[in-house]
């Protein structure tokens, strides 16, 4: 035994050394997006909203092919049929049993064997097909408008904030004037000029729609542009372009996504609003807005026309709002509880 050693080394046991363990990575770290997804998943309402949106998009794409009726296939012998769905017809309060508001089974009266899941309109067109094709057009307009708003808003906002000074000043003054104009009024005026159509409605919404996005992006970039990581990148020789595209805009993604989520229901509402005041899409094209409007005219006699399209449009708007709220909670670190 070593005389310098008082105790037998065998008595000692090595404690675990944290330094050693920490050199190995046992778990992949939480990225921002993974963390956001975990936060989002916890929000049951938002998750449900996401599922509803998925379902509606699926039906808007494939729904019209579930039966063989065309959206513009008129047949007066089967006009104004109430909805009838094979299994749901047993649930009387749902109103899916083919009886109209007076309690008469219209399918029996007219001698029709087929089932129209959402019923038919006054020209005998199948409402199931029309509702989903209408949703397709409404969603198409909304996504297109939201997408272009995003592109213009992000470019305008980031350029304005990044270059600052006089550029920012001029760009902000332009924004202020645009913001001073009530949006819907401008949209109405533009539609009168351009004549209603899918592209003109989208365009009219974009003219004012991008302003909100530009302001949010500008605010974020202003906050970020003086931070150290931007300085570091600049010191390494990064050009303005790279700084904007690789550092500033990706770090603004959270607010950008949230704003886009809220743009979609606004666009759907605007399109429907235009239909309602008589500036909407012209037949044979139908959107959810024109369907609600058509249904409204016959509401007292055939409520199913308006009720079904209203439910679909409301579901879309509620879902997008809930998902937007959920995303805001998940992506905004200040909202963590």
């Amino acid at each position, binding site marked *: 035994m070593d005389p310098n050693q008082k105790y037998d080394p065998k008595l000692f046991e090595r404690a675990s050394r944290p330094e050693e363990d920490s050199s190995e990575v046992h778990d992949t770290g939480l990225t921002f997006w993974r963390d956001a997804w975990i936060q989002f998943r916890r929000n049951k309402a938002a998750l449900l909203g996401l599922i509803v949106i998925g379902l509606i998009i699926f039906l808007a794409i494939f729904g019209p092919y579930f039966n063989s009726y065309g959206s513009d296939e008129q047949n007066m012998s089967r006009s104004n049929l109430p909805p009838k769905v094979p299994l749901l017809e047993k649930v009387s309060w749902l109103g899916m049993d083919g009886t109209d508001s007076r309690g008469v089974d219209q399918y029996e009266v007219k001698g029709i064997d087929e089932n129209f899941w959402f019923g038919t309109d006054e020209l005998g067109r199948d409402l199931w097909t029309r509702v989903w094709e209408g949703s397709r057009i409404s969603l198409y307009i909304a996504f297109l408008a939201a997408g272009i708003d995003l592109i213009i808003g992000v470019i305008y906002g980031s350029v304005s904030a990044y270059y600052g000074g006089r550029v920012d000043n001029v760009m902000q003054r332009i924004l202020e004037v645009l913001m*001073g104009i*009530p949006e819907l009024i401008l949209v109405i005026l533009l539609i009168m000029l351009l004549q209603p159509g899918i592209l003109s409605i989208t365009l009219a919404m974009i003219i004012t729609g991008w302003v909100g996005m530009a302001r949010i992006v500008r605010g974020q970039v202003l906050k970020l542009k003086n931070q150290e990581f931007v300085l570091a990148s600049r010191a390494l020789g990064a050009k303005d372009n790279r700084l904007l595209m690789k550092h500033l805009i990706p770090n603004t993604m959270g607010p950008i996504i949230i704003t886009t989520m809220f743009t979609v229901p606004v666009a759907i509402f605007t399109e429907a609003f235009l239909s*309602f005041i008589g500036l909407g899409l012209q037949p044979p094209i139908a959107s959810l807005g024109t369907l609600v409007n058509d249904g409204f005219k016959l509401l007292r006699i055939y409520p199913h026309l308006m009720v079904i399209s209203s439910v679909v449009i409301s579901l879309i708007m509620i879902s997008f709002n809930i998902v937007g709220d959920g995303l805001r909670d998940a992506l905004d670190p200040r909202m963590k509880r």
Partner: protein
Amino acid sequence: MKRYVISRIIFMLITLLIIISFTFFLMQTLPGSPFNDEQLSEFQREQMNERYGLNEPVPKQYLNYLTNLVKGDLGVSFQYDGRPVTGIIKERIGTSAVLGIQSLIFGTIIGLALGIIGALYHNTTIDYASIIIAVIGLSIPNFVFAGLLQYWVGVKLEWLPVAFWRGFEYTILPTIALSMFVIATVARYIRTEMIEVLSEDYMLTAKSKGLSRFTMIWRHGVRNSMIPIITIMGPLVVSLVTGTLIVEKIFSIPGLGDQFVDSILTNDYPVIMGVTIFYSALFIFVVFVVDLLYGVLDPRIRLSGGDK
């Protein structure tokens, strides 16, 4: 402060001028003329154009319009045989104002109640219920809500009149339909604000002073949460204005919104322009007042170019 107000007013005027010019030239380029009637002879058409000053060169018409506008004259309607547009607006605005203000008051009260209750019972079933009501109120388009309300309460249950404007009971359904958005927006806003305020130190002070729960919440909580509410007045007014277009049409109310929609469908350009300018001026004015009030009510907000 004075500098700020003056620069804001100049800016408001510029914005308004841009809107006026924009609508004017838009109306010039619009397809179709109000005198498209085939029964009119060439001579009659010329006479009509002369009477309404449409034969002058466009820049001259523009200057005429601007000078008349300053004098408070918005031209005459094409549809109603030469009735002045200002007269039409004056006649119709009262009804819309009653409807709008009633909805604003009703919506704010219900929204406040909903938001405060939600905040006090934060993260309980009551809170979730108030959030759900707010999200639904925000999401369901007002024409859907107004249409269904008219159908269920007016037609099916026959509790309230279905349409027209002949007394208080006629105003109830349109007011509810119009205030849904107000309720939802106010409730969401006040709830978030109130949750924050409730955790402030001064609430603890109030409690330790021995104030009753009601006084504490009312005097310190609600009052402090109210300030930011003013910022949403701008969007609320816009929603009320566009809401009246829909609600007045659905309930056949003779207001300005109903008139506006009518004029759009009949190409009555002077009325469309007049009402557009009126709505824009209203909106710009509200935003301005809101900004000023905000600075007055909350001394922490420094208006840019503040006084010394």
